[in-house]
């Protein structure tokens, strides 16, 4: 079976400066993979390349065997890639509800199920996103990505700024999704402890390359110190 | 005996049609003269005073023009003419005739071959007397030429002016003004609204249901824009020193030649450009431009066949000419003008005495 997502030797640049130096990565259907690495290691860049917000220069990115290289980002998204981006990027002048429906596609996730996941958004349905608190915006960004009913969900620091309880709820929801085996998730997050509890596998990035990959059990403290500084 | 003419006129943008006509009339006359010694350099002033001033510098300094001409708009003329004549060059105006240049700023090297700005308005006032229009409502834009226009109208008018209404320059909606007119007891309307303003006014007047005789200077009823106004203009009286049906040999020849050359009927502006060129050609036949005094005298003599018939210069170098009343009529499919009356005979201008030349 073709992997859900495969990246081979991907390089990418911002203008003249290189950010990815030959990154490779494979994900199976239903898998939850954590992408970890120091600040500036290239995690976000990898995610941007997958959803075509940044064109890679060389290498290959395939989703379900289909080459993403020539696709515009809306085409890639329609293949089933959903993004909760770093820095939230909610549509500031739209209401919560409008944010959610703007790019919704039919499926398991709809307004009701998202609001069940984030009850706090329910009271704020008709508030414009700009006036939400940081955490509320973060919830909205995740909810918005879910509303596209993706098969691959990209969560880039999606729990940043969320209260511990909310974070727990999200992780619980993620494990539920995971147990359905329908949704695959590529995660970037800072708390290794929390990642370890839910991710199947972890890929360590350093200076734009994947330097290690394996389960969290295999990630020894020495390696964690060497690659992640902890 | 050669002559270099620099023509600064408006060839681009909204006001280009006037400049194009002046240029075409002028060049037609030059062509007809078969005089290889006349060279004309044409430049586009974009209707901007600063551009016009710099073009004048260019024509004088680089092209070494002896005579300048071509400017359409009074404000551009005021910007350009004084510096041109102060540099010892001649300027022949084919259109603009602001009062300052006829009065205190008059100059021996400046000749106006069209009219003093007030002339057509004065004629309208004079005609209103004879046509029995006793209570006209006057409309003009709020700028110097607009004020001159209404003052010109009142100069010979003997009745009672209901209102002198000034609108915004460039205004294109006249609903408010028309409502005001409807609410007065005016018996006629005199308006000076050049260009698109006049077209808009006439169309809206036709839609307003107001039924009063209209009177205005020729500018809003000239050949070029009459078609755009359409039937709304039929029957309107307008004053002009020229009309294509003026029955003299020069004019008949001009109208035919212009149509043959350009495939359209000539306009007032074309006739003025044509006359300007012919004046120049006649002067050149009698004097060399290098001899300024002789050339000036030759210009002053105005020994050319004007398409207007009799033509001579007053002391301040502005025309003395007849001014007619025309009526807009439909000839076949084409709207045009027909002379219906003589409004003023041998009209000079009101500023002769202000000129100390």
């Amino acid at each position, binding site marked *: 079976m073709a992997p859900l997502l495969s990246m081979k030797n991907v390089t990418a640049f911002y203008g003249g400066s290189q950010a990815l130096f030959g990154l490779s990565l494979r994900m199976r259907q239903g898998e939850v993979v954590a992408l970890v690495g120091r600040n500036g290691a290239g995690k976000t860049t990898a995610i941007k390349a997958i959803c075509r917000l940044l064109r890679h220069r060389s290498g290959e990115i395939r989703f379900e065997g289909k080459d993403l290289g020539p696709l515009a980002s809306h085409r890639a998204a329609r293949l089933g890639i959903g993004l909760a981006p770093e820095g939230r990027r909610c549509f500031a002048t739209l209401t919560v509800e409008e944010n959610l429906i703007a790019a919704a596609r039919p499926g398991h996730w709809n307004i009701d199920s998202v609001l069940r996941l984030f009850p706090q958004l329910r009271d704020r349905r008709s508030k414009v996103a700009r006036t939400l608190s940081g955490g509320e915006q973060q919830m909205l960004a995740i909810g918005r990505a879910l509303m596209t009913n993706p098969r691959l969900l990209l969560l880039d620091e999606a729990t940043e700024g969320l209260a511990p309880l909310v974070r727990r709820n999200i992780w619980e929801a993620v494990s539920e999704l995971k147990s359905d085996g329908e949704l695959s998730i590529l995660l970037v997050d800072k708390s290794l402890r929390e990642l370890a509890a839910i991710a199947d596998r972890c890929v360590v990035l350093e200076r734009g390359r994947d330097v290690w990959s394996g389960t969290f059990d295999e990630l020894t403290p020495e390696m964690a110190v060497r690659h992640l500084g902890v | 005996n050669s002559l270099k003419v620099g023509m600064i006129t408006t060839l681009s943008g909204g006001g280009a049609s006037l400049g194009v006509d002046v240029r075409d009339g002028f060049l037609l006359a030059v062509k007809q003269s078969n005089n290889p010694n006349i060279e004309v350099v044409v430049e586009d002033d974009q209707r901007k005073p600063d551009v016009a001033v710099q073009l004048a510098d260019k024509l004088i300094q680089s092209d070494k023009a002896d005579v300048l001409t071509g400017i359409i708009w009074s404000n551009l003329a005021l910007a350009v003419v004084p510096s041109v004549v102060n540099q010892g060059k001649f300027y022949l105006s084919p259109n603009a005739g602001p009062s300052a240049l006829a009065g205190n700023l008059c100059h021996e090297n400046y000749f106006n071959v069209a009219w003093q700005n007030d002339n057509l308005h004065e004629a309208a006032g004079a005609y209103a007397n004879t046509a029995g229009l006793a209570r006209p409502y006057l409309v003009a834009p709020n700028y110097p030429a607009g004020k001159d226009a209404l003052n010109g109208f009142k100069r010979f008018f003997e009745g009672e002016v209901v209102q002198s209404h000034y609108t915004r320059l460039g205004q294109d909606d006249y609903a408010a003004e028309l409502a005001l007119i409807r609410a007065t007891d005016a018996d006629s309307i005199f308006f000076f609204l050049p260009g*698109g303003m006049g077209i808009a006014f006439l169309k809206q007047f036709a839609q307003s249901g107001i039924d009063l005789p209209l009177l205005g200077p020729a500018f809003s009823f000239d050949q070029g824009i009459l078609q755009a106004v359409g039937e709304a203009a039929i029957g309107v009286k307008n004053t002009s020193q020229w009309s294509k049906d003026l029955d003299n040999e020069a004019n008949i020849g001009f109208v035919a030649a212009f149509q043959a050359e350009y495939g359209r009927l000539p306009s007032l502006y074309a006739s003025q450009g044509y006359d300007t060129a012919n004046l120049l050609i006649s002067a050149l036949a009698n004097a060399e431009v290098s001899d300024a005094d002789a050339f000036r005298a030759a210009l002053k003599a105005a020994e050319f066949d004007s398409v207007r018939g009799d033509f001579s210069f007053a002391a301040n170098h502005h025309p003395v000419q007849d001014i007619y009343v025309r009526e807009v009529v439909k000839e076949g499919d084409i709207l045009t003008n027909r002379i219906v009356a003589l409004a003023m005979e041998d009209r000079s201008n009101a500023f002769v005495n202000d000129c100390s030349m």
Partner: protein
Amino acid sequence: MSIVLIAEQILNGLQLGVMLFLMAAGLTLIFGVMGLINLAHGSLYMIGAFACAGIASATGSFWLGLLAGLSAAAAAGAIVELAVIRRLYNRDHLDQVLATFALILVFSEGTRWVFGSFPLYLTPPEVLEGTVTLPGGIIYSRFRLAIIVAGLAVAGGLFLLIGKTLLGVRIRAGECDREMIAALGVNIGILYTLVFALGAGLAGLAGAMVGSIQSVQVGMGEPVLILAFVVIVIGGIGSVAGAFVGSILVGMADTLGRFLFPVFFGTFMDPSSAMSVGSALASMLIYLLMAAVLVFRPQGLFGHVGA
């Protein structure tokens, strides 16, 4: 000064306002909703008027002309979006200013090239000619009434489109973050082309209608453009309701100013200076109005803080 006259002037103000709204509607769509400074909007208005005049005189039917005006402007808009504007979304607003300034030159002089320097003939259709008498004895032009109706219809339609449809939501989302809405799977490119064409078509419609009672000539779009900008800034950028209210305010202020200022100054000045001071002030009035609104509400009447 009679009641009828005042009523008629109020109606005139309303009508001028609606006329401005027809123009401002397209602009607020492009400008407010898409976040694009389009100086060439006036040119699209001109294209609408010229196409209408051209087709109306060729076929003898005003209605065909109107259709032609709308479609020609929409088509021009779509072409402009695809060829030029599309490349400028990610750029500084200033690049858009320069590009659309260049487009004005191309369109204006191009139109003159094609149609000549003289104004064109365009007159309202026969059914809308003449006047009707409204209750209270107000005599009013049919065509102006028709403009009021058309403007109200456009206002309603746009309001629903932008405020109540998914299309509107997506367009506004695109204005906040084009990249993001694309990353969520929306083809924002084609949406923007459509919106731009729609805005352009509205400008064309305005040009065709207004051209029937004004002058169809090169450069006719520029003064209206400035007025339309004034309108949407007063109303608050991107708000259809704001554009509508702004239009009516500007229309009223302009008409009533022209009408009342001379009367007002006439109470203590001689008539001729009252007329000239009054009309000078009237011509500044809408700018005064805009400045006043912005000083007290920097985001316009219906705008959002920070938007």
